[in-house]
């Protein structure tokens, strides 16, 4: 029995489409369909919408949707509310991203070192991540409202106006909330990464007289560098897409627009006000900003 070196035309065509391992391609197909249907097509459509005077119509209703060039982008870039939204999300990222990276790395290291009740701590950190934001927001409202538990404990030291109705405190409070909520997920990433840091390196450093901080800084931090890049990029992407918290915790971007975010504006403009063209323009600007920030994070943390 021998294998023939020649292939039939139908076999070549099949291989061109399905590769050497058709079953592998077949198994990958559902995800490809998912990516195309849920990411690629909507993104392409959003790009098209952003360059046209577009609004949603009932099926069969034909209305002109003329090409308008950069008009939608000009409109949103000269809209103070849009600029404020990007500024607000900047404040959020400045607080949320560093806190997320530092806290998750430190807490994961502590858990990895086998602190007492480590399993209980892991569950405690992970539960907020698993719990629906809607229910957690309810708890935070009770904590941080004017007559909430936090202000009751603080007494005369409570801020006035209170946390969620102060223009300067609303976004930082949201950033703290999101950091706390997401921390469990990032701790898990770091815990996985820490398994790959050789124990011998720690032992060698200890033998050389390095204290705990020096071992953390010289061994652990470089050892989990690739995970730090991942955590940075994920924190930037999820943070820039902030919606639920300002929608629920500060009641639609309050107070006085201090916690309005680009995604909240996309929702208002695109869904509530039926202006999907300007909403798409904001969305594309956000994609560009997030892309640039992620690239920058990747470069800054790249191993030299």
């Amino acid at each position, binding site marked *: 029995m021998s294998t023939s070196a020649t292939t039939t035309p139908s076999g070549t065509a099949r291989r061109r489409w399905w590769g050497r391992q058709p079953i592998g391609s077949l198994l990958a197909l559902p995800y490809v369909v998912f990516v195309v249907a849920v990411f690629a097509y909507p993104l392409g459509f959003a790009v098209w919408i952003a360059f046209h005077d577009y609004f949603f119509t009932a099926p069969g209703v034909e209305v002109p949707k003329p090409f308008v060039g950069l008009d939608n982008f000009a409109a949103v870039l000269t809209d103070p509310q849009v600029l404020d939204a990007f500024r607000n999300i900047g404040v959020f990222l400045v607080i949320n991203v560093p806190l997320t990276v530092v806290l998750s790395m430190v807490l994961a290291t502590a858990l990895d070192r086998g602190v007492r009740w480590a399993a209980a701590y892991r569950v405690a950190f992970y539960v907020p991540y698993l719990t629906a934001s809607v229910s957690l927001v309810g708890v935070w409202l009770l904590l941080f409202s004017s007559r909430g538990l936090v202000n009751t404990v603080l007494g005369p030291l409570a801020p006035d106006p209170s946390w969620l*109705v102060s*223009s300067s405190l609303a976004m930082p409070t949201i950033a703290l909330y999101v950091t706390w909520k997401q921390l469990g997920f990032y701790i898990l990433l770091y815990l996985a990464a820490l398994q790959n840091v050789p124990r011998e390196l720690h032992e060698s450093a200890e033998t050389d007289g390095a204290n705990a901080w020096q071992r953390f800084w010289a061994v652990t931090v470089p050892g989990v560098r690739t995970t730090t890049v991942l955590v940075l990029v994920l924190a930037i992407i999820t943070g820039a897409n902030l919606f639920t918290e300002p929608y629920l915790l500060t009641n639609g971007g309050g107070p006085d627009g201090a916690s309005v975010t680009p995604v909240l504006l996309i929702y208002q403009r695109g869904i509530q*006000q039926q202006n999907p063209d300007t909403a798409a323009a904001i969305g594309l600007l956000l994609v560009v900003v997030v892309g640039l920030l992620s690239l920058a994070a990747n470069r800054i943390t790249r191993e030299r």
Partner: protein
Amino acid sequence: MKHHRIVGVAATLTAVALTAACSGGGGGGGGDDAASATGPITVWLSNNEQEVAWGKDVVEAWNADHPDEKVTAQEIPAGSSSEEAITAAITAGTAPCLVYNISSAAVPGWVRQGGLVNLSELEDGASYIEDRVGDGAQTYLTDDGYYQLPWKSNPVMVMYNKAVFEKAGIDPENPDMATYDDFLAGARKIVDSGAADSAIWPSPTNEFFQPWFDFYPLYLAESGGTPLVEDGAATFDDENGTAVADFWATIYSEGLAPKEASTDDAMSAGTTAMQLAGPWAIASYADSVDVGFMPVPTSSGEADPVTFADSKNVSMFTACENQGTAWEFLKFSTSEENDGALLEATGQMPLRTDLATTYADYFADNPAYEVFADQRTGDVPSIPNSVEAWQAFRDAYSSAVIFGTTSVEEFLSGAAEKIDGLVQG
């Protein structure tokens, strides 16, 4: 190589998806024949428990006599608001034949989408609506057509907790708070006496519809019923708008109303003494708070001011394939008998010219509701970019009146200019 193959598959699928999307139009429309067609239809009701019960009874009565034109009723699908669920359904071509929860503010947008049937084009459409509602029907015209049947209203009044008023030294049977000065004096008494933490608690949140429950009822009262926009221009940048905005700004600046949303029902919890509310509140608070009602205040203390109707109406959708049945069912469900059943079940006021006399027995048996039937009402105007205009108004109001970061003058002139631009396109 593998990468290129996957890209190839992805490109093909994208092309298929785009082709499918581009050729997808026309699937959901009712078509020209639909206007007179009869057959099964679907209607959506609000998720109000009493309205759902009323709707089921009406549908059951209809179905008993119309086996070939069966009506199926269901609640509006879950969404953050009815309007969003309906907008999505129009776009997808899955809207039902009728929706019994239409806000006038959303109608112009849906007309622009091509989602609503112009009831004026039906043979007896305009006459049925005008006979039912009277002169007030004109308020509900969009592009000179009736795209909604004015159905029911919830006239907004000031609801107050009688026990809190008594504790504050205000006579709950005759609060004497009709003028702004008297209202503010009463509000200060409530807070200073410690009877409640706040005097009144309108929602200070940023949704586009919130003005309907703080600024707008008082503006309608102060101006004698002038809508926010009239003849294509904003009306509120005048002495009436200034008086109302100053009134609310005083309420907030003196701490008589909180600047954050309540984490629970403030009336039931006793943390506030007053709310702006419609007749629905009577049943809602029957078991928890002894409430009284008074007209919204004006600067002169008018005894019978105009207030916000907070109406909910019925629209027919172009996706409906049996519009003949839909129109007949709409008339059946808004007949004198079924309007009476609605009033009985929900306490909400059918929008009819002869309300008080037609249902005289009901109001005699339920005197608490009579005061609502007597209210003169105005509604939101039917204007282009309606939701955007109300959102612009709310944003500027929040800055100036609730948070005091801009002046009332800046709010009124800035919002009026922006709304003029939106309305005039």
